[in-house]
């Protein structure tokens, strides 16, 4: 019984240990995106270039989120 309780007291993952604390840091990526958008609005005056950088950053962050979620599985 004790072994069973110890087994289920932690989240199971493919590596045998949990990285569930990373899940709480995922909203940081959205915060980074907001901040970078504000900085780019201040310093990049060409609208097309700014949009290109913002979209590239967004795509990169989607890939980061995908990798983090895959890493957690």
């Amino acid at each position, binding site marked *: 019984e004790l072994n069973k309780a110890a087994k289920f007291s932690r989240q199971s993952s493919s590596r045998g240990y949990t990285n569930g604390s990373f899940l709480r840091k995922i909203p940081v990526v959205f915060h980074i995106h907001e901040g*970078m958008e504000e900085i780019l609005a201040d310093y990049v005056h060409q609208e097309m270039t700014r949009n290109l950088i913002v979209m590239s950053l967004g795509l990169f962050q989607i890939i980061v989120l995908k990798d983090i979620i895959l890493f957690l599985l």
Partner: protein
Amino acid sequence: STISGDIKTTQEEPKIKSFRPLSPHLSVYQPQMNSMLSIFNRISGVYLTGVTFAGYLLYLKMGMICLTYPSFYQVLYHTQQQLPVITSVTALAAIYHTIKSTHSLLTH
């Protein structure tokens, strides 16, 4: 003479445009507490962003691809050597960014 003058002005225009000053005109104004705190808040945010994405690339992405290359091992080794410094500066930047953001949220 007018034509040559026009040519001169058209030639000089891009030079002037390329040396436009950046928006916080630091050289014009005397450094003030509020502006410097705000600028450092932004700098710390950009530094934390860089550390986050560099860490992601180094530990989640590059390792899978580049561990067979000796140069990647060298980069990883030198990064690991500087890790205490990077971690300390990151912790300071994170604390500063949190406190300043909370302060500006409460005051504005």
